[in-house]
């Protein structure tokens, strides 16, 4: 399911609306991921994972910046995310299935904060975008 012109336009428009708050939502998405899927905490033994943790907030901002980069390079996600893919594959050794858990929690976070903007078609476009990000990251594995 390639990203259609309509998908790209929808994702870009949503990202413009989120503005400088992407970090807040990525942080909440991380918190939700740790809460619902405790196995994902395995990658952060060195973090304080309690609610409001400054380390989780900083990491949320990193994730947000990476997603914003992805939105700016929808025509070449594997290229734009190549270094991050290599990092997650070879150094951090994150199970690629766990990217999908974070993607799901990001959708939940945005649905919770922007109910008016997450109509079914937008939900589909965002899900496709996040799947492409996940694939781009996973393409560096193995």
């Amino acid at each position: 399911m390639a990203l259609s012109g309509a998908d790209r336009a929808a994702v870009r428009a949503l990202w413009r609306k989120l503005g400088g708050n992407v970090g807040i939502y990525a942080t909440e998405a991380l918190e939700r991921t740790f809460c619902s899927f405790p196995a994902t905490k395995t990658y952060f033994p060195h973090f304080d994972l309690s609610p409001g943790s400054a380390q989780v907030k900083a990491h949320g901002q990193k994730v947000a910046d990476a997603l914003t980069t992805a939105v700016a390079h929808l025509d070449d996600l594997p290229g734009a995310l190549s270094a991050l893919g290599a990092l997650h594959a070879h150094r951090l050794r994150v199970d690629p299935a766990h990217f999908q858990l974070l993607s799901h929690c990001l959708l939940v976070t945005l649905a919770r904060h922007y109910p008016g903007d997450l109509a079914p078609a937008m939900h589909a476009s965002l899900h496709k975008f996040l799947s492409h990000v996940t694939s781009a990251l996973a393409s560096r594995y193995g």
Partner: protein
Amino acid sequence: MVHFSAEEKAAITSLWGKVNVEDAGGEALGRLLVVYPWTQRFFDNFGNLSSASAIMGNPKVKAHGKKVLTSFGDAVKNMDNLKGTFAKLSELHCDKLHVDPENFRLLGNVLVCVLAHHFGKEFTPQVQAAYQKVVAGVANALAHKYH
């Protein structure tokens, strides 16, 4: 077998009490068909599924969504015996409907998104975690009789 703490059961039951099963069911099933279009293959006789708005407005989708979510309500009432509660439905989905159990997980996650969409602030990370357990339990229970 999935185990629910008293707090989780309370959170799940309390939120469920406020769910409009008819609206949420149609919403969840509709979104499944929009976001994961291959799932439309199980609903060939539902008529017009040609666009997101056609799907969301389709009366058969709404009616079936209500049926599905009413069933889900049984899960909420029987959290300690999900396998027993869904035994017959599991056989139906395996032997007659031939639905890949992966699709139950997809619907479960779509339902979680619908709940977040509807309940907003109330759908805290802790409430979400409790619901992720329920939807996983239901998906497993539905897959249990597959052979």
